[in-house]
């Protein structure tokens, strides 16, 4: 009698695709030959294995999170720029190519969850009725490139107070309708320049820039500014994020 396999192919398909993209499958290793790079992969020092070296690197990433939290001050502001400094054209970036950008679901509402007093969901009109703040700041990608853009929307600290969030909770977690997710520390969430952006370059957000509402947090690297938000959760449970799970530094403050 043949038992059901413990893991169904469909369940690991996304993981296989991810490994394939990063060239970690056996066929890629063989194609590349036993170069120094593939030797490094085989001995596990790229955060994808359970080797001792990778465990040490993950420990260092956690240590780095604590150092960065200690360095962070909500008194220090990201530099702001004149309108003439805005980068044109602005570079699209996501974990998928631009042709896979998803339209806003017709019944979209921003959900709030976790340690909050008021759990009613939010329409764009309701968000626009809250106090707004505009900023022209530098978006710094973890890859090293950067660009200057203009965003405006609701300061997150105002929104969190408005929904009666527990401001002593450790994390604010963001989920997006394009499958992306990330989370930030409460101190950074309450930073005066952290906003729920509704506009980009003086226009309402369009889908490629994260419509209808996105996080814009200039005191963190770009991948923390989650687009196309679906829900915001105030929580004490560490939830990491799409990139963080693969090895990007969780705190990623700048």
């Amino acid at each position, binding site marked *: 009698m043949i038992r059901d396999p413990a893991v169904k192919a469909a369940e690991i398909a996304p993981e296989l695709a991810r490994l394939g993209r990063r060239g970690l499958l056996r066929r890629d290793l063989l194609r590349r030959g036993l170069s120094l790079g593939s030797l490094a992969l085989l001995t596990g020092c790229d955060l994808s294995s359970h080797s001792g070296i990778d465990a040490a*690197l993950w420990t260092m990433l956690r240590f780095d999170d604590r150092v960065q939290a200690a360095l962070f001050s909500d008194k220090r502001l*990201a530099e702001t720029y004149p309108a003439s400094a805005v980068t044109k054209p602005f570079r699209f970036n996501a974990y998928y190519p631009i042709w896979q950008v998803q339209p806003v679901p017709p019944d979209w509402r921003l959900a709030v969850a976790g340690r909050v007093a008021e759990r009613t969901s939010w329409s764009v009109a309701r968000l626009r009725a809250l106090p707004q703040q505009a900023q022209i700041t530098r978006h710094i990608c973890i890859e090293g490139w950067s660009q200057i853009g203009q965003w405006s929307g609701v300061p997150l600290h105002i929104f969190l107070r408005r929904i009666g969030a527990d401001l002593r909770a450790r994390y604010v977690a963001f989920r997006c309708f394009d499958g992306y997710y990330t989370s930030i520390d409460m101190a950074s969430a309450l930073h005066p320049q952290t906003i729920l952006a509704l506009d980009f370059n003086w226009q309402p957000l369009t889908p490629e820039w994260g419509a209808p509402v996105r996080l814009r947090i200039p005191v963190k690297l770009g991948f923390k500014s989650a687009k196309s938000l679906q829900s915001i959760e105030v929580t004490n449970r560490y939830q990491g994020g799409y*990139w963080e799970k693969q090895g990007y*530094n969780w705190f990623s*403050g*700048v």
Partner: protein
Amino acid sequence: MTRSRNGARAAHPLAVRIMHWVGAAAVITMMLSGWAIYNASPALPFTFPRWATLGGWLGAGIAWHISAMWVLFADGIAYLGYGVFSGHFRRDIRPVGMRALARDVGAALSFRLGHRLGHYNAVQRLLYSGVIASLCVAVATGLSIWKPVQFGWLAGFFGGYPVARGIHLAMMLCIAGFLVVHLALVALFPRTLVSMVAPLEAEDAP
């Protein structure tokens, strides 16, 4: 060739030998992981071969980079403190005049530059002071692009985030250039490698 009999000074004190090899490991780790980071968004019209990078992809490159960072930082602070307070910088590293430099460069290019263990000629002084300065600027620009908001004053000093990133890359190229020359000279004078490992006695001054 005569050796000093009663002084018995080591060509390189134990502290310098330890700090040299700890620093060397940290710098090599920083450079190879830096190449993995660079490859994610190359600022120059080339990328480093993946086999030459440490980590193989951006996330792992950063993990290596911010791990080795602490080693380089601690080693660098110790070495700078030692260099200033022991007189090592003043005695051995401080560049000498242009005339001595011209003489030693000329001698080196015609393969007539003598090398005595424990004594630093003008070419060495220029190379070592240059790479120490490059490493200091690399660390300072590195801190400024790691934390351009929290260390905004430092990023501002270097002309802002994109300029600081460019300087950081330029320092890597300087350090890589130093390594090529340094390793070539060690290959020409293999005894210098031994003297950086074992306590060989310093030779008499020329």
